[in-house]
Structure formats: structure tokens, C-alpha cells
């Protein structure tokens, strides 16, 4: 899971996709940002859920969205709260207003904390962590 050279490494917390969210995780695995849209009124929504809160339609479609956006805010995690992330601390997690109109929370790599500002453009990247799961992270565009 975390490479053969570190067999004793603590287990990484992984998502357990649901019937609602599976297409999102499938998209990430193919290195695409795929988002849930209402098939009736067309509005995008995240995180995935069964009913459109705008028009109450239960019909959905999944569309690829541009993997880019602007920083809404961020935090720098120093205390890990989890054994796996202890090896990574301190790490930046940025909350990003994606161009598609939803937010994505993901680690931000390759940028210094002191250089961050709200509104800064970043790009979504894809990190395969298991056969089934790929997690998102951000970098400079």
C-alpha cells in the first residue's frame, strides 16, 4: 500500500466509495475530475448525493470538469491526529473553488505556506494510492 520498503508503515485512511460516489472515484482513477450533475436542471453538486436539492430530480449524469481552480482558504496541519499523516506533517491542505463550481479539499504540494493567498490559481493532480483509489492533490498551475 505504501511501498514495499516501509512494510511497518501505518495504514493510510482510504475512502470507501458508496453507490452515490463511485463514479467520482472512478474518474480520479482515470486521472479525471468527474462531477455529479442533475440530469433535469443541469446543476453540478458535490459531494455526491441521490437527490438534486434544487429541483429534487433523482436522475443524475456525470461530466468531466476542468481540473483547475482558485484557493478559497487553507490550513497547515502540524499535529497529525493520525499515525499515517505523522510522517507527512506539516502538510498544507487547500480548499479550492474549482472552475466547475464546487469545492475540493486536498493537499497542496510544491508551494510554500508563505506564498499562499486567497484567489491563487492551482491545478488538481492525481496520486494513485491503491489499485482502486486515486486521491487528489493540488500544485501550482
Amino acid at each position, binding site marked *: 500500500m505504501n511501498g514495499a520498503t516501509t512494510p511497518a508503515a501505518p495504514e493510510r485512511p482510504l*475512502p470507501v466509495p458508496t453507490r452515490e*460516489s463511485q463514479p467520482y472515484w472512478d474518474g480520479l482513477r482515470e486521472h479525471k475530475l468527474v462531477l455529479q450533475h442533475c440530469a433535469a436542471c443541469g446543476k453540478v453538486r458535490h459531494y455526491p448525493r441521490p437527490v438534486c436539492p434544487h429541483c429534487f430530480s433523482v436522475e443524475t449524469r456525470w461530466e468531466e470538469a476542468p481540473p483547475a481552480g482558485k484557493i478559497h482558504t487553507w*490550513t*497547515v*496541519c502540524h499535529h497529525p491526529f*493520525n499515525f499515517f499523516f505523522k510522517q507527512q506533517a506539516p502538510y498544507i491542505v487547500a480548499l479550492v473553488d474549482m472552475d466547475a463550481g464546487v469545492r475540493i*479539499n486536498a493537499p497542496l504540494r510544491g508551494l510554500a505556506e508563505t506564498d499562499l493567498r486567497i484567489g491563487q490559481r492551482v491545478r488538481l493532480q492525481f496520486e494513485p494510492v491503491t489499485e482502486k483509489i486515486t486521491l487528489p492533490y493540488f500544485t501550482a498551475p
Partner: protein
Amino acid sequence: MAHALRDRAAISGVGETAYTRGTDKSGLALQLEASLKAIDDAGLNPRDVDGIIPYFPGGGIAEDFIANLGLPDLKLSLFVPMGGATCVAALQSAAMAIASGVCNHVLISVGRTGYSGARVSTRLQQFPQFALAAEFEAPIGLFAPAQLYAQGARRHMALYGTTTRHFAEVAVVTRRHAIMNGNVVMNKPLTVEEHQASRMIADPFRLFDCSLESDGGAAVIVSAAERARSLRKPLVTLMGVAEGHPESPASIAQRPDLLEFGLAKAAPRAYAMAGVGPEDMDLAEIYDCFTFTVINQLELLGFCKKGEGGPFVMNGRIELGGELPINTHGGLLSQGHVVGLNHIVELTRQLRREAGKAQVRNAELGLVTGYGDMGDGSVAILRRAA
């Protein structure tokens, strides 16, 4: 027309265990100990309790209370699943049960071994409301409220110029109040410099911006106001109360405005019910899971405008003797973490004039908030009856 619940219910009894770091007792034992104290404080017999709203998950459930307190005819057993907003929201549920005639005396209680038992990042996994966070936020490194709320604090700083010096003021004043109380975990003075030098947890939150992991229990009894008048202690009635649920309730990340949560909806309703406003308050007990959370809530409660919460807390305003003393018991930051039930206990004692060294002179009217579960909010306005 007066609201149907206004002044119908009263806080007739309050109780707390010692707040500690380390205990041999279970959460249930602490919860029952505090419950017996609250029942005794009201001058009631445990068998008078006919409704219970225990904090959940964690601690006892109806079966435990019936078995331990010998309750002969429990008529209502409720959970209010709102995290840190639970206890104050439970006052609304209790008042509804009393005003409708279902119950006479409702027990709200918490018992927690937050220090000697499971810690916060483990406890949260028990909440169904955290399923989304577990799927989308834990895998990318966000586990604890400190991390999830830090992003909002960072944005507030960027938008409004709020600083960690403002955060420090909340921590330092709260500590001074705690030392006056005595039954607290943190009983040594804290300076601004010590706050600013404390280790970073989740930027911008340092150690002393975060509430305590502690062991302890607290309980209150809610009774019909006309019954409470003849009980042991001065009458403190529930003048206004409301709960509020934010947009995107299970994920802060998707909320349109990270700094607007359930309290923004609850506060106007509670003021309207009570027929009073923020300017009428003699003191406020504000749910202080983090220093910044206090600043944010003071804005949503209308004590100051949005973005002005930082400067508002400065220059002695929130200290005893100031314009709006807050968290006169030491709060979750310095007294102990019993999910804010200690805030209700303290406000009741203040209005009874039982608050000892931390007594706010001539306290007649105050409010108490709950905040939690990613942004649920609750607020109650209590008054000392004439």
C-alpha cells in the same frame, strides 16, 4: 403574541463532577454522578425525573438511567444529535416536552472521558454525520475539528484582518476566569506570549486555541417554571431558545460561506422569542471549542458586525467587569470539555448569583450557545425571574 415556550420552562437544578485529566470512572459513572448532583440541587428525588436527553454518542442511554436511578415511569427518551450544539438545543426539546405536558422534569446530562478514554479523532468516527468527512476529508489529511475549522479561521484572517493576537485574548481572559472558578483543569495563569509561543496544531490554531480533552460530567434539570418556583433554588427561566442547521451540514468544505453556520439562523429566532436583543445581555457563555469560534459566534449573535469579532474581544470587553463578560467559568478552553453543558450550568449559577469570585454583578439576563457537528448551532437566553 408571546412565543408558546417563552418562560414556560426553568433550569431547576445543575450539577458537575470535578473536571480532571485522568479518572478511574467511566463516562457513565461521571454522567450519573453529575445527574444526582443536579437532582439534589433542584431539591428533587431521582424518581421525579420523567424525561432524559443524554448526550449521544458516548455515555449513558435510557436503560442506564432507569437501571441506576430506579426511574419508575420514564416518559421521554431523546437524543439530539448535534455535536457541541446538542446541550443547548436539548433545552428546546425539554421545554417542548414540558410545555406540552408530556414531562415534569427532564434531565440533560453528559459524561465524558475525553482524556482517559477515546480521543477526538476516534470519537468522531461514531457519528453518522461524519460519514462524508470520513470518505472525502480524512483520506486527504483532515481528521479533527481543529483542522476543519482552521480553514474558516484562516479565511476570516485574510478577509477581515483578524489576528492570532485576537485569538490569544480569548484564551487569556478565559484562563483568568477559570482560575476564579476553581473546579477547572487549567488552573495556572496564561500570558499572551505563552499563547503565541505554544505549538502549532493546525495553522492558524495553536495549542492554546484548542479546547481541552478532559474527564468529567455535567447535568441540568429542566422543569416547568411554575413547579420550579417552589423548588430549592432561585428561579431561572428559559426565555428564548432555538437551534439552527447550516447549509451543507455534513461538510464545511461545500458550505457557501464557511463563516455562516447554524447559529446565524438560530440567534434571530431566539431573540424574537425572548423579545430581547444582544444589547440586553449581562453576560454570555459562548461555546469555545476554539478561540476563533468565540469570535465568529459573537458576530453571528449580533454583538458586533461580521468581520469585527477580533477587535471586539480586545481591551477588557469580554472580561469580568467589562461590557460583556464571556465564559466566566473558564469554558471548554480552560475548565473542561463536557460539550458545553458546563456553559449552561455556569449561566444558571450566574443568574442565581452563585458564581463566587467570578460573579457578574446584578446578572439578570444572559445567553449561552452551542456549536458543533461541523456547524450546527443553538442558543438559549436565560433570565433570573423577578
